[in-house]
């Protein structure tokens, strides 16, 4: 983590946080028809109880709530009903050069489809303009099979580059599309609290900094923006030694994705001497079967040149060989 902009010792630390997931959704009988039609470069709607043709199709009539089944093809050409201009496209949007979002009423439809129009500039789009779907070279059964819409009368001389097709779920040859996959990637700036930032900066110097809750007197490491018992920030700083005990532990026998140590190994709650809250760390340096509740341990630090603002500066904890702490001395920390 790094402190943003004008760093002072008190500026909270922050770091980019990127999260992503490929959402996989089954389409069901109604949207299934729609995406399978898209794969064949056709647009399909459904007729509602009031006679209106909904595109994209809706599963239930918006007014009567009856399940709708009267499917009908509509044109891949229609009229712009409203539009707004995107001067700086965002990640993931259909076009990566300026474009218009538009509500488009396709010929034969009564509701509007939302999609992008590759118009070039805001002066070249207007309500009432006729537009036509530009289909992807390879259609997969996804709304993005329509790359965008373009003007019927004056399509752009230099069509915008089409983004890559979305990922496709496994399906047998000739089978209809039953699921759609939508990758979602989001980017954040994650901030540590002022209390956590002091703790993380301490770690970079090889120090373990806790703080005491002014109400209950408990020493938290890491310190907290609010004591979970009292709802007030922890305040008085307490420097803690790198020795403590194992309160409870488990032996990891199961391999999993991203595992960095060969099982079996021990993940334990370590209660530092003078702290009231344990944290999770590794216990190495002895057989997993030798680890006990109450066992005395000491931090094994990585070489100083590898330290940064992280608890990973401590590679693991290892036994000191001192006598175990009696159960009564840590029972209330379990």
């Amino acid at each position, binding site marked *: 983590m790094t402190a943003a902009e004008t760093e002072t010792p008190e500026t909270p630390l922050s770091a980019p946080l990127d999260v992503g997931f490929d*959402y996989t959704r089954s389409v069901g009988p109604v949207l299934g028809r729609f995406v399978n039609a898209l794969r064949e470069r056709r647009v399909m709607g459904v007729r509602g109880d009031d006679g209106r043709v909904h595109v994209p199709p809706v599963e239930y009539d918006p007014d009567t709530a009856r399940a709708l089944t009267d499917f009908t093809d509509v044109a891949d050409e229609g009229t712009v009903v409203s539009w707004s201009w*995107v001067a700086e496209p965002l990640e993931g949007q259909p076009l990566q050069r300026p474009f218009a979002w538009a*509500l488009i009423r396709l010929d034969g439809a009564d509701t509007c489809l*939302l999609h992008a129009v590759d118009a070039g500039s805001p002066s070249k789009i207007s309500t009432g303009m006729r537009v036509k779907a530009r289909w992807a070279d390879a259609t997969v059964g996804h*709304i993005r099979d329509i790359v965008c819409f373009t003007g019927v009368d004056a399509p752009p001389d230099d069509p915008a580059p089409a983004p890559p097709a979305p990922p496709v779920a496994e399906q047998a040859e000739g089978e209809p599309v039953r699921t759609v996959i*939508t990758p979602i990637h989001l980017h954040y*700036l994650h901030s540590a609290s002022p209390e956590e930032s002091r703790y993380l900066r301490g770690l970079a110097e090889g120090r373990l900094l806790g703080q005491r809750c002014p109400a209950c007197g408990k020493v938290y490491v890491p310190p907290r923006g609010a004591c979970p018992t009292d*709802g007030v920030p922890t305040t008085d700083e307490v420097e803690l030694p790198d020795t403590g005990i194992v309160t409870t532990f488990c032996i990891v026998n199961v391999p999993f994705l991203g595992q960095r140590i060969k099982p079996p190994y021990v993940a334990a709650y370590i209660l530092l001497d003078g702290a009231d809250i344990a944290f999770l760390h590794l216990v190495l340096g002895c057989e997993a079967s030798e680890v006990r509740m109450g066992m005395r341990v000491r931090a094994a630090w990585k070489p100083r040149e590898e330290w940064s603002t992280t608890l990973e500066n401590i590679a693991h904890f290892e036994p000191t060989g001192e006598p175990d702490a009696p159960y009564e001395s840590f029972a209330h920390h379990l």
Partner: protein
Amino acid sequence: MTDVAVVGFAQSPSVRRTQGTTNGVEMLVPIFKEVFEQTGLSKRDIGFWCSGSSDYLAGRAFSFIAAIDAIGAFPPIHESHVEMDAAWALYEAWLKIRMGEVDTALVYGFGKSSAGQLRRVLALQLDPYVVAPLWPDSISLAGLQARLGMEAGLWSEKDLAEVAARSRRDAAGNPFAQVSGDTEVAELLDTPFVADPLRAHDIAPVTDGAAVIVLASAERARDLAERPAVITGIDHRVDSPGLGVRDLTRSPSTASAGRAAGAGTDVEIAELHAPFTHQELIVRDALGLGEQVRINPSGGALTGNPMFSAGLVRIGEAARQILAGNARRTLAHATSGPALQQNLVAVLERG
């Protein structure tokens, strides 16, 4: 069933970016303290806690659990959460008191909108099959709605700038506002488009913030506030999620929620949750609020739009006018979703 009243309200300043965490603790601790001072209650007196926030805004799972640290939830508390604006958390708390389960409740909302790219994050509240995969951003969608009204002759760019100028002028008296000041309509109309047809003044700012309201049964309320703001009606309704299905220039859900909540002509002040200038006009029209009704004396969401608490702030501001003795009957509106999809209306009266 017992009546329910607002007896306390506090909010954090609306700011573009806090240095705090996404769990809101730093914003919540001081405002919890503030409402406890206002009401004389302590955390042990609160029968039910309910919050509104969003994991997508925070970029982490179960972010609302971390926020509970701000309460100091020991001994264990009776708690709930909605992944919506906290105005809907208030609705849940209102039900708890109405049903006689508890006689006090504390409702809070928080959001650090600045942690991600807000208009992109909000694309994820859209239909996940055929709309969200295109990543339509919240500002562009509002632009489609604004243009429909302009071209139908329902409002003009000048009408929108007037809403913005009035909001900013009123916000000058609100110490929590993010945007305020005297601006001429002509000056605003001279600025470039951000998302044609919308200009910067048409769009609520990106805001980090939090707010808290304390509710009590009418009986308890008399001991907690000199002039409790009794909720005489509250209701929320939703329109079709299909953006191309409904008439975006109207808000039938606001109209029906308003009717159910008893929104009448005798409202003195209305706090409307309109993150875009044209949406204020749609909501005013749907609620039938005439010229005599004072709209958004706080400056409204256009001058500070803390996600997941801006709706709660509207209820708080409407209540504050009664708590302070400035009004006898006020109205609050909250919205959620794209282009005013879901709407809540509350009517408050001096008890």
